[in-house]
């Protein structure tokens, strides 16, 4: 086989694609870790045939970036276009198209939403992977010109007490968990944006492939929104922030393949290094330059580095561009042009600026001690060029580069067993204690307290709610983004991967229902959502089918609740040695709070109040924590009834506005028992429930995770008015005897809350 590489500059090679055969293609893709398939390389060869020349290594790398699953959504685009992208809503201002969604807040302001995964880097380097995940999501919000106001971190790990032998190259869940939480705390706390919501889930399928999803919300004046595109021919590209180094090389192809035994050695250069103290002034400087109307476009350096940012900005503006690689400030000497072109080094932003404003912009960055450099210029060629030492090393048609490839991949759904297993009801007292001690249910306080959740002073409802040093889980956090308005944003993160594993359609729909419930619990109206779709290898038919089912489920529920998906991200190839991760369509739900002073928290307020249950409890035990704990399989995953739930939602919000609701908590993992216990913990009060009505077994009544349900505390004197507004069942009252008492016909349970609390506190790690 002839040598396919020909040196044209010191560290630039021409690659002989035109004469290559299949084995050459394979060799090239492998040697250069391009992650491109044979078909894709042939398509690229045909392009260069038309260009009548061979590509350089820089050019091939550009395709590897832009055609990766991570960048072009080649496997998921068709299904997304059929489902989640189609929900129309008047509140949408600019959604899906850019790095973050822009949604109507009030007359003058919009809020900005971004949600992303940083899974594979975190599985190799949990601390650095999580930290740079936060950095990336902050840039996505800042590049719209918005001030970040909240961070959200949904995390998914293998069981922390996993004792069996780990697959080669896999790190222990405990190590990953500690590293990720520390990474989020150390980076998030330093940049000064509060981490106010999130979730932590555990399942065996995440052992070799943990998930780190990161979300960010921002606020912006509508007339200050800046887009990720160059404005005019002749505009100058200014790159600002950190230097470009050999960290984060091939991050996108690494994110678009399965992790393996050799990942530790092979892929570590793909993990970026974070530096929070560059990010903090970088945000200030970018926002100041935008506020002064000096920018015509802005975009962050994310996956695919300079290659993606410069091409995509030019393409979105229907222009072309020339980038001078010699001007890019480097961390290391001797970096090859292709490395400069694809490096994903952190804390970098690209701006397009009219020539007459360049000096003003550079001055702002100088004040903040943030390096900023002119690296290129927009033209009208509709091509992207890169020049190195006076020679053009990349010259590509933008349309061909960025339209990329799309696959309608074959899918075959593998049906799950939905038959309910027969079993004898276990001892309920013992089961209740075990339930509260479950890592999926127990207190998240030891994690939440490590994140600064009130820096900026705008967190009105904190993630932990209740009497001081007795606080309990809240349903959502509430932020008051503007100084002169009491309007707020409620924020929650939700998905139940166990549901989704048993039934991706109803599991995904349930995630929407749960997000809606959480937002309503604090007295906010569900307004928009972002989705981060974490799934297995789409080239395998059963994984692809789960992805499709989940998207359909999301669409069904969100469309019915009129909550559009305004932003999102797809992370595929999440596989372990024993198969794919549980399908995990993580949702970020955002609600509008009319008046933050009317926010409702989840902790019980006084003794002698009445407890109401809203919504119907069914024997839908598939994917429940109860079944999982007992080692039972099968069962129906809870269905979603949007019309009924919407009706309940409207009534509850009405009652809250009339100030008839003292506390409210939705029923989710662990069902009624867990909801009642958590409310009691937060108020340091007791609860008496009578659930005798209905002829379901007591354990189903207590642990069913049926959707559309809330537990609500109302003062006796308000009971009549409440009942006239909300269709709810009176099921108990608050007491001061420190007990959770449950009566179901002849069954009488009496659980000391202190013991329950101890179990709940100790489920993960006590503070």
């Amino acid at each position: 086989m002839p040598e396919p590489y020909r040196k044209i500059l010191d560290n630039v090679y021409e690659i002989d694609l035109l004469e290559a055969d299949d084995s050459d293609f394979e060799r090239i893709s492998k040697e250069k870790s391009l992650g491109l398939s044979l078909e894709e390389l042939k398509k690229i060869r045909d392009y260069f045939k038309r260009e009548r020349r061979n590509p350089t290594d820089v050019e091939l790398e550009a395709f590897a970036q832009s055609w990766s699953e991570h960048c072009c959504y080649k496997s998921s685009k068709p299904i997304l276009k059929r489902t989640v992208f189609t929900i129309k809503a008047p509140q949408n201002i600019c959604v899906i198209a850019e790095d973050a969604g822009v949604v109507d807040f009030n007359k003058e302001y919009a809020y900005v939403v971004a949600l992303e995964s940083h899974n594979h880097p975190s599985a190799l380097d949990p601390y650095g992977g999580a930290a740079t995940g936060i950095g990336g999501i902050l840039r996505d919000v800042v590049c719209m010109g918005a001030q970040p106001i909240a961070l959200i971190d949904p995390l998914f790990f293998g069981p922390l007490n996993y004792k069996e032998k780990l697959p080669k190259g896999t790190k222990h869940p405990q190590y990953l968990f500690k590293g990720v939480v520390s990474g989020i705390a150390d980076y998030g706390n330093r940049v000064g944006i509060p981490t106010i919501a999130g979730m932590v889930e555990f399942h065996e399928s995440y052992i070799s492939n943990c998930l780190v999803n990161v979300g960010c919300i921002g606020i912006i004046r509508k007339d200050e929104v800046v887009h990720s595109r160059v404005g005019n021919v002749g505009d100058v590209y200014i790159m600002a922030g950190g230097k470009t180094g050999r960290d984060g090389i091939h991050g996108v192809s690494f994110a678009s393949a399965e992790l393996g035994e050799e990942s530790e050695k092979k892929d570590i250069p793909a993990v970026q290094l974070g530096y929070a103290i560059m990010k903090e002034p970088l945000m200030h400087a970018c926002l100041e330059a935008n506020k002064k109307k000096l920018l015509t476009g802005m975009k962050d350096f994310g996956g695919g580095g300079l290659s993606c940012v410069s091409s995509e900005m030019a393409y979105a503006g229907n222009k072309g561009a020339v980038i001078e690689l010699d001007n890019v400030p480097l961390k290391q000497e001797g970096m090859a042009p292709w490395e400069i072109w694809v490096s994903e080094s952190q804390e970098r932003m690209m701006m397009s600026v009219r020539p007459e404003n360049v000096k003003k912009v550079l001055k702002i960055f100088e004040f903040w001690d943030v390096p900023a450099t002119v690296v290129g210029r927009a033209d009208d060629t509709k091509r992207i060029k890169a020049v190195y030492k006076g020679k053009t090393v990349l010259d590509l048609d933008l349309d061909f580069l960025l339209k990329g490839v799309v696959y309608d991949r074959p899918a075959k759904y593998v049906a799950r067993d939905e038959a309910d297993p027969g079993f004898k009801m276990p001892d309920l007292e013992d089961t209740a204690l075990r339930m509260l001690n479950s890592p999926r249910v127990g207190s998240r306080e030891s994690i939440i307290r490590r994140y600064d959740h009130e820096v900026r002073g705008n967190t009105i409802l904190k993630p932990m709610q209740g009497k001081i040093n007795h606080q309990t889980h809240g349903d959502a956090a509430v932020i008051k983004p503007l100084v002169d308005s009491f309007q707020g944003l409620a924020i929650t993160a939700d998905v139940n991967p166990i549901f989704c594993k048993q039934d991706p359609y109803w599991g995904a729909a349930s995630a929407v229902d749960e997000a809606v419930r959480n937002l309503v619990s604090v007295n906010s109206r569900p307004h928009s959502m972002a989705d981060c779709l974490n799934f297995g290898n789409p080239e395998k038919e059963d994984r692809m089918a789960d992805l499709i089912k989940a998207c359909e489920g999301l669409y069904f529920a969100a469309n019915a609740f009129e909550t559009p998906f305004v932003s999102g991200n797809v992370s595929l190839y999440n596989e372990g040695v024993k198969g794919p991760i549980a399908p995990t369509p993580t949702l970020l739900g955002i609600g509008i709070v009319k008046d933050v002073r009317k926010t409702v928290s989840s902790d019980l307020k006084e003794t002698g109040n009445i407890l109401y249950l809203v919504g119907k409890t069914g024997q839908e035990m598939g994917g429940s924590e109860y079944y999982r704990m007992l080692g039972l399989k099968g069962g129906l995953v809870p269905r979603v009834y949007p019309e009924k739930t919407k009706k309940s939602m409207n009534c509850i919000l009405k009652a809250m506005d009339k100030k008839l609701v003292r506390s409210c908590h939705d029923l989710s993992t662990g069902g009624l028992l867990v909801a009642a216990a958590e409310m009691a913990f937060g108020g340091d009060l007791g609860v008496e429930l009578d659930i005798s009505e209905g002829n379901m077994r007591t354990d189903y009544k207590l642990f069913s995770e049926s959707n559309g349900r809330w537990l609500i505390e109302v003062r006796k004197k308000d009971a009549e008015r409440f009942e006239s507004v909300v269709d709810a069942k009176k099921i108990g009252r608050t007491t001061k005897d420190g007990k959770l008492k449950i009566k179901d016909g002849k069954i009488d349970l009496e659980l000391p809350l202190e013991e329950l609390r101890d179990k709940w506190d100790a489920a993960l790690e006590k503070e």
Partner: protein
Amino acid sequence: MGCRIGEGMKMRVCVLFMEGTNCEDETRRAFEQIGLEAELVHLKQLTGDVIPELRRNLGDYSVLMIPGGWSAGDYVRAGAIFAARIKSKLREDIKDFIEDGKLVLGVCNGFQVLTELGLLPAFEGISETPEAALTNNANGRFQCRPVYLKHTGKCRFTEKIGEDNVLQIPVAHAEGRFTFGENDEKYLEKLIENEQIVFRYCRADGSDALGEFPWNPNGSLYDIAGICNPEKNVLGMMPHPERVVDGIQQADWTRKKKGRGDGRIFFESIRECLKRGF
């Protein structure tokens, strides 16, 4: 000590920040909410490392406030780099500022900076090397939580807060355990004798925290949350009063009748102190 604040001089607050400071916005807002003029000033603007029109003079302000955050990342001892930068270029300005009887306040990272600078506890005037430290929390973790504080001794800033009043103010830090190291016993006595302890962590009913977590969130010596200098015009504290100026910023406001935030009286007290001109 002669006081030179008063007639003809604006009661301006300099909210000083550098890269990594991150509580400057809400701190300025807190001052403005109680009617004081506050300006965000980058350290470079005081040291003169900026274009002339951006330069500021410390002497033009009545209060120097160093807010919370992670100045320069706090990758070494918290506050050490901020302090070193101040020391190298502003040492005399700050000395004059304090000797003029003006007010210096440090919250969280600001308290760490004041301690590193030797402005606190400053038993014998400003010390060359730090006499105390705010070191890693006893449980080794960052803590973001509401705590109760007892106002145990008045400094110039806090006269409006009644003695033994209990305030609920949040903390958010990884390094807040106040200690004199091996000299704990000796210097604590001195601190008490000089009436330099301004805030101590306590329980909800005001009784002693006795070092017990979570009432005392970091294991601080003698439950110390904030101290002042012997002259009572320099105050450092770990809790963040600027985060609870309004009632709805308190962690448990949904359980209470609506009211003001417990941090407001702290800022009002500063305002009154300035009005009085001591």
